[in-house]
């Protein structure tokens, strides 16, 4: 059950599916489908991390997410890089080359002005949606909205 489950856990965060049905999906649907759901969430986390901690390399970001999620969210750490690439293409983060803690060449990412604006907008959006979801989940069976 361990291989690939990082992704499944992340999925379970945002959508309530039974394990069984998820497995069915994981077999057939191409990677693209899963990351569609994950994409926005992970992008938001990466942006927020860079805003909070300043310039970071991919490894650092992965560690931070691991630390904050306290092992609830296990990540295929590679997926951080698709997120970084995406954010960079949108112009929300920028990168420079630097040297890592163990003296290797590594790319350091930092949030841009546009990225900050986007983060504000995304945060509001997230809060609004999660509010709606929370209210929905509290509905008693047969109750009115």
């Amino acid at each position, binding site marked *: 059950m361990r291989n690939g489950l990082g992704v499944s856990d992340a999925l379970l965060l945002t959508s309530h599916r039974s394990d069984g049905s998820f497995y069915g999906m994981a077999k057939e649907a191409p990677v693209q489908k899963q990351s569609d759901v994950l994409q926005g969430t992970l992008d938001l986390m990466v942006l927020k991390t860079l805003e909070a901690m300043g310039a970071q*390399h991919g*490894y650092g970001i992965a560690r931070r997410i691991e630390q904050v999620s306290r092992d609830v969210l296990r990540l*295929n750490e590679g997926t951080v890089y698709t997120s970084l690439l995406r954010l960079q293409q949108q112009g929300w983060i920028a990168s420079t080359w630097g040297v890592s803690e163990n003296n290797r060449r590594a790319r350091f990412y930092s949030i841009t002005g546009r990225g900050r604006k986007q983060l504000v907008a995304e945060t509001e959006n997230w809060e609004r949606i999660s509010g709606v979801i929370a209210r929905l989940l509290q509905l008693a069976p047969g109750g009115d909205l």
Partner: protein
Amino acid sequence: MARVSAFVAKVRNLFAGRRADREFDQELEAHISLLSDRYVREGMTPADARYAALRQFGNATSLRETCTEMRTFAPLQTFCQDLRYGARLLRRSPGWTLVAVLTLTLGIGATTAIFSLVQAVLLTPLPYPAPDRLVVPATTFTRLATDRGPVAYADVLDWKAERGLFEAVTPLYASNIDITDGAEPERVPAIRTDEAYFAVVGSAPLLGRFFTPQDNLPNAPRVVVLSHSLWNRRFGGDPHMIGKPIELSGVPATIIGVTGPDAIWPSDAELIRPLGLGGQPAAGILRRDNHAFMALARLKPGVSLEQAQAKLTVMATEIAHRDANRADTGWKLHALDAYVVGPSLRRTLWVILGAALLVLLIACVNVANLLLARGLARQREIAVRAALGAGRRRIAAQFIAESALLSAMGGVAGVVVGYWGLKLLVRFAPPDVARLEQAQIDVRVLAFSLGLCLVTTVLAGLAPAFFASRIAPVQSFHDAGRTLSGSLRSTRLRNLLVVSELALALVLLTGAGLLVRSVSRLGHVEPGIVRDGLLTMEVSLPQARYATEPLVAEGFDRVTAAIRRVPGVIDASATSSLPIGGGGNYLGRSFLTEGQPEPPASADTQAYWTVGQPGYFGALGIPILEGRAFTPHDTATSTPVIIISRAMAKTMFPNGSPLGKRIRSWRDEDVYREIVGVAGDVRYESLAGSFNKNVYVPHTQDAWASLILVVRTRLDPPTLVASVRHAVGTVDKKLALSNVRTMEQVVEAEMARPRLSMSLLVIFGLTALVLAAVGIYGIVAYAVTERTREIGVRIALGAARTQVVAMIVSKALRLAGAGLLSGTVAAFALARVLESLLYEVSATNPGALGAAAALLLTVVVAAASVPAFRASRVDPVTALRGE
């Protein structure tokens, strides 16, 4: 915004692709090493730590691919890959490729050439400022069934007063004039108009000035404006021509201006002169039934053609109420571009373009069929690809790529073919198509051809792509070992394609057949004259030296007498208008017999008024059915006489002979003339027109100064031109001959348009036939290959070879039957479009359809027979061993 920056990043990556990949690898490696360092610190062995790090990182290869795809235009790159693969495939079977490319070349070439014509003649705006506001007001004559009739001067004055509709309105009077100074007198097309003309056309003088209202007064000094082309041609573009004198038909005038290039309408006019009707015109000019002018107007900005037409209709109705002579007339406002290109030419061009598009469609179907056939042969390869994980889209894309390659090649070759085709078209095109010579392969035509290529790509690639993307790997592997059988679905698809190809070919062939019939009918039309051995030319006696009617009559007598003395000339005469629309003035008048009350109490009879010298009937070969022709004894002072045509005689005198009766052209000449003869009917308006009612009067009694000389010769008419010119020069060396043509050329000009559309449709039809034959051949040949074993078994079991042939040909015939059936339906549906192009042939003529169907069937049988006979020679032993 975000999408744009992603796009920019991708574009940058087009050039930095490799480096970006390398850097990405470095980045991942850094990450993994940091991760494994951490596990080492937690106590793992370096090897275990690296393994754990890799696991935690996830599938690096797939990540790398995903990111590469995100960084680049992946679909584009795979498409390029497909193109390269397709190119290799095409190179491997050059014969197949050649057939496919040639097919598309024909289709795209034909369509490109025709489109460039349509573009030049129909789609390019006229070269005047704001051409969409230029309109031609004309008179509709209900009885003559025309809405392009000339207008009265009073009408033009009314329109000028209508300030709400028009910015400016101008009357036009087209007349040729001789430039008589210089060595060689020259007759040029000229117009007379007023000062509003230049405001209407919207042109400013290149040199000098245009008219003022004073120039248009009856007794103003004579002034003239030169067209840009005349100024260049005759005066070498001399900038000092302004103020210089020019002699026009023997009368001096002053050159006051030169127009800009293309700033004149009608575009062939070379001189513009004032009408001289300014101030208070004479009462005769203002008569509402004096329809002597054309008009041109410029609508005010914001006034639509419909609004203006509505207002004019109201005005015309009022006039019709006031003036009985205008009872059956109205006004029609033509947009200038629609006026220049009449509805018949417009329709002809669209029909031809439609036919070319049909050819292209057939070509597409054919290439689709070829691709499909090849797709079947590649079925196993495709199945392997599918088994290895190629998606449907990916497989379909490959076929689209192949068809794109073929279309691109066909497109390039097609534009070249179109270029030459256009040159041929322009050379053989009828002379009366405006702006035809401007047709060229320009950017817009190229854009159109590019569009054609794209459409072709989709049309030709779609069916094979659809089919190939549906090949199931499992089934194909099961079939392996045996000859690959086309699935039922693909066979149906191919049959459908061939059937539609045959149907389209039938439509084109039927259309071609109808036009062939129509042109052949037209070629056998009896115009009412003997048309071989006739030379015609226009000549005008200038008023300056031929001021009186007797002088004019005598002048023409001397001219024709001089021509009659030229060796080889049998007869020569002069007339006011030539048959078959050959030129001159077609003057319509209304006639009443003696004693008949004037309208509205009774109806008048309308006929063309033709002036002729005594020898006219003999020279043209018009028979005199009753009575006599004109003689030298019909003079200005003898009894006024008239000869009427048979159609006229039948209408006015249905019982008994008209000889000796008297008629008059009421409202015009109003002189009773005695009918001395009845002449055979002649088609004056055009070859396709009906016999016109005609009256002839002797030139001595109505001495027109502009006539057309007709010369009958036993030699080849064109060889006579120089000596006739010389003979005319001996009478008056300042006379200019113009529009020198043989009667054959007049007929040819009449036939040119129908003949061109016929030739094009025949070419298109035959192309369609060949393509359909290729299609049928392909499908039957494939079926034979596929059924070799079955045929072998049949032969082994004792089937006769003829039975085998019959079996295969009958399959082709079933397809042909379906094609002909649907083609017949389509041909009938499209018949209406052709109707107006046909002369005395019904568009639903069963003969044309039958002939087309028979031709198509013959070709189908021939095309199917080749593979059928090959099948009949199948050796059962070999066929079965092939298993």
